């Protein structure tokens, strides 16, 4: 009975992690390369893998395919598809993705996938796996900021992050008032491997434990207060650890003081062109951390025959050969082949320490993870989101308005009870449908409003963005994530405000961490994608392209930021 209960809990967690996953579910953008055409008569196998190792794996696979290794008289050809770890496992379990090999970011996904597979079929999805690369989860921080906290002489951890996050003086408390408030980032625990590991690490630290975390622990007021205290410093969440790394590198210390990243992303940031404004360093929390160990295994499903199995084994052997492992090291990963020594760039010159982490945290049982997620929903930083939708006449074309209605309504459903929502539509002029209302009050009527939108008129895009941002600036609340989400299917045709005036108005200046972020959706083929991208980039938010086919997934991905 106990086993059954655990399986049920696992299934619930897997469901949460996977079914809420959007089009860019876990790490970075999904850039599937599975469309590569296999040569005629090739023995083709597919690997679905966590996208954080994309650069290394794609290069290695190109080399492997060039070798034309033979199985049963046919040359092996490997097709690759980069996805978030949760999504790739879900797709293979559902048979939507008939990959022969999978390689998610951490072994937890294999464990969860096998639990679900056993419950459904009595068999594992992957019976054996081995790491192809490794990287620990770290707190990435700008070096001058880490030094202001006493690093490297003083070991830092979650308690230090909490102290800084709660201090209203921010960096001034460390003698650095010019750095403003402490601004922190990590991905959404329900969508991302590193986000979930961050939440568990915070809970462990709050409970003063390194092992044996219980449901009672995560529900303790002191633990909830610990997690809430850190989360208050979060700039926003998101589905992609890689996105955080790129934004932190581009935005500098004014945007994020620190973020939870994989160690290899710290190295990547320090070797980026152009160089970031300061070196970034990896803090290995003194309370312990987790490994991202990239387990790779053959899928136990009927579409994997004996020859495909042999081909998979040959490919994995290739990945673990010295040249490919040395290449992984150059990309900032710790090699999984034990005979390849760890050296540069795993060193202090690149902001990391090969002798860390000193200790790890125990992955808690499924029911504890579930309780932690429940706790997080109340502890997370609340958001005030303004949803700004284009209802100009062109939205009637090709069914755009109908799909946008559904996506917007679903988006409202994904926000937390403690979040606040403002709703605006625009055609020839902007019009508020509601402002600054708690989700508990506006969720149902707001969804009804979205589902009853009708299109007509011109496109006052710039006026709408200006009005929305101005209203958000007028909100005195300084403790929420503030964002505007703009969906538009065409160029501005009638605004009194110019684009330059809009860009000036939304520019957050040097301390961009507290900016009002404007997420944009260029909807349909006639959307002003370049303009919308400029608007989102000015606020260091994210620009999306959407169509009637995927607009709901776009909205779901945006929801991961809150």
């Amino acid at each position, binding site marked *: 009975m106990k086993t059954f209960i655990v399986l049920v809990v696992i299934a619930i967690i897997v469901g949460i992690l996977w079914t809420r996953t959007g089009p860019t579910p876990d790490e970075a953008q999904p850039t599937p390369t599975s469309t590569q055409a296999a040569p005629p008569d090739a023995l083709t196998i597919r690997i679905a893998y966590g996208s954080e190792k994309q650069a290394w794996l794609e290069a290695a696979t190109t080399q492997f395919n060039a*070798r034309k*290794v*033979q*199985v*049963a*008289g046919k040359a*092996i050809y490997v097709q690759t598809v980069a996805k978030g770890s949760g999504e790739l496992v879900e797709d293979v379990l559902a048979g939507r993705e008939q990959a022969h090999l999978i390689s998610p970011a951490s072994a937890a996904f294999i464990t969860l996938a096998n639990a679900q597979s056993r419950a459904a079929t009595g068999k594992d999805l992957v019976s054996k796996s081995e*790491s192809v690369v*490794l990287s*620990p989860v770290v707190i990435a921080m700008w070096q001058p900021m880490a030094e202001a906290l006493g690093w490297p002489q003083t*070991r830092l951890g979650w308690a230090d992050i909490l102290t800084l996050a709660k201090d209203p003086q921010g960096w001034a408390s460390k003698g650095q008032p010019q750095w403003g408030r402490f601004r922190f980032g990590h991905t959404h625990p329900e969508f991302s491997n590193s986000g979930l590991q961050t939440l568990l690490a915070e809970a462990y630290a709050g409970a003063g434990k*390194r*092992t044996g975390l219980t449901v009672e622990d995560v529900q303790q007021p002191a633990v909830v207060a610990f997690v809430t205290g850190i989360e208050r410093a979060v700039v926003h969440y998101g589905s992609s650890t890689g996105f955080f790394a790129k934004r932190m590198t581009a935005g500098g210390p004014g945007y994020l003081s620190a973020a939870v990243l994989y160690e290899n992303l710290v190295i990547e940031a320090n070797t980026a062109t152009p160089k970031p404004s300061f070196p970034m360093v990896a803090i290995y929390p*003194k309370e*312990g*951390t987790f*490994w991202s*160990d990239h387990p790779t295994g053959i899928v136990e499903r009927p579409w994997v025959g004996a020859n495909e199995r*042999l081909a998979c084994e*040959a490919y994995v*052997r*290739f990945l673990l*050969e010295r040249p490919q492992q040395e290449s992984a090291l150059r990309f900032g990963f*710790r090699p*999984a082949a*034990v*005979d*390849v*020594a*760890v050296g540069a760039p795993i060193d202090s010159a690149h902001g990391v320490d*090969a*002798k*860390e*982490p*000193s*200790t*790890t945290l*125990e992955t808690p049982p499924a029911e504890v993870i579930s309780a932690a997620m429940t706790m997080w929903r109340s502890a997370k930083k609340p958001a005030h989101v303004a949803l700004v939708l284009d209802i100009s006449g062109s939205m009637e074309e090709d069914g755009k308005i109908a799909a946008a209605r559904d996506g917007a309504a679903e988006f409202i459903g994904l926000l937390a009870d403690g979040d606040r929502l403002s709703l605006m539509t625009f055609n020839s002029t902007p019009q508020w449908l509601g402002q600054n209302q708690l989700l508990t009050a506006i969720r149902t009527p707001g969804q009804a409003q979205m589902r009853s939108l009708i299109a007509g008129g011109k496109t006052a895009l710039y006026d709408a963005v200006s009005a929305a941002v101005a209203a958000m600036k007028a909100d005195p609340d300084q403790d929420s994530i503030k964002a505007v989400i703009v969906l538009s299917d065409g160029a501005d045709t009638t605004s009194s405000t110019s684009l330059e005036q809009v860009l000036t108005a939304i520019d957050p200046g040097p301390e961009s961490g507290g900016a009002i972020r404007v997420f944009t959706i260029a909807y349909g083929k006639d959307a002003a994608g370049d303009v919308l991208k400029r608007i989102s980039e000015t606020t260091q938010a994210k620009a999306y392209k959407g169509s009637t086919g995927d607009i709901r997934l776009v909205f779901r991905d945006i929801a991961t930021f809150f």
Partner: protein
Amino acid sequence: MPDDTAPKATFLGKVVILLILAGCGFLAWKLLFAKPQPAAPTAPTTSTTPGLPAPRSGAAVRISVAYGTEKDRWMKWAVEEFAKVEPNTQVDLLGKGSLEGAQALLAGEQLNIWAPASSLYSANFTADWQVKFSKAPFARSETLALTPMVFVWWTERFQALKQPPQSFRDVAKLVAEPTGWAGLAGKPEWGFLKFGHAHPNQSNSGLMALVLMTHDYHQARTLGMAQVMDAGFQTWLTTFEKGVAGLSGSTGTQMKEMVLKGPSAFDGLCVYESVAIDYLRNAQGRWGDLHITYPSPNAWSDNPAYLIDAPWSSTEQRAAAGRFIDFLLSPTSQRKALEHGFRPGDPAVPIKEPGSPFIELAKYGLRIDLPQVVETPSGEVISNLLAGWQRAVGR
């Protein structure tokens, strides 16, 4: 303890029970009377292509070998070298735990050689095989190499301990320290002391660890039911196993994880001596030196190789499998086994000569002479020990 709460033998326990006696007896006989092994086949005349050992379409004979992953590096070397002298024979290696290999054979997986970590499982396997095929399973059996159990530690952490552990009872005290490394060595940043051993129901080395900790707790050369059922021992076992950081189905996999993830994953493990030796140099390229100590009492694993007398084996496959076993027993291969940390099954291959890891690596704690070697527990004792362990650990 009331009878109705007494541990009962599991299926797996039954699988293991009868064989430990036979295995140890067989091992003792091998140690005392091992015969010289055949010479190596002719010198290599061709070379394999480096890189991918993809299946060779031109191979005339193909054989499958199930082997314990503790012999992984040696076996992979042997297959490559064997291919040089027998290019028309293809050897497919299948890494399997000792019990897993037995189950695969009984399920009809067409293996030609089974090379588990020890002969503990062979008697029970033989009985099951005879029920199925009405004849003995092995056309030939040989001892490839010997190895005892060791504790392997990260040197920095071993040296930081105020009292270096020499036994399972010592280790149990360390993992039970409520403040972890803060209390053990004034190093709170190291967390709790993380010690691991393989799963007793999945791995020969895990079973060995369980037997040795039981002997150690009772300070007895022989074990009976009274010791296994002793309430004090059951309590001690439960407490100890709660502090164990990880259980793996494979000794080699666990050792590899220790090297890859360093002391963040494991401060120490109980593994085969050969496995520890094999990873010593790799560890230096990662996290630093390893230090080896020998739990007292100790026990041998004999690494048998069985040529399977199976209906699916052709005459050509049997002959090829026999030649592969000959190759494994050749002085060349036995010296390679020594390089990988095994004590050769061929007594003609000395281990006290320059180049031997037992000489070269002595500074890491390696030693040739073992402490006390225990006597074999009865099948009933092993069965109840495994059942008690399952109750204690709940997994």
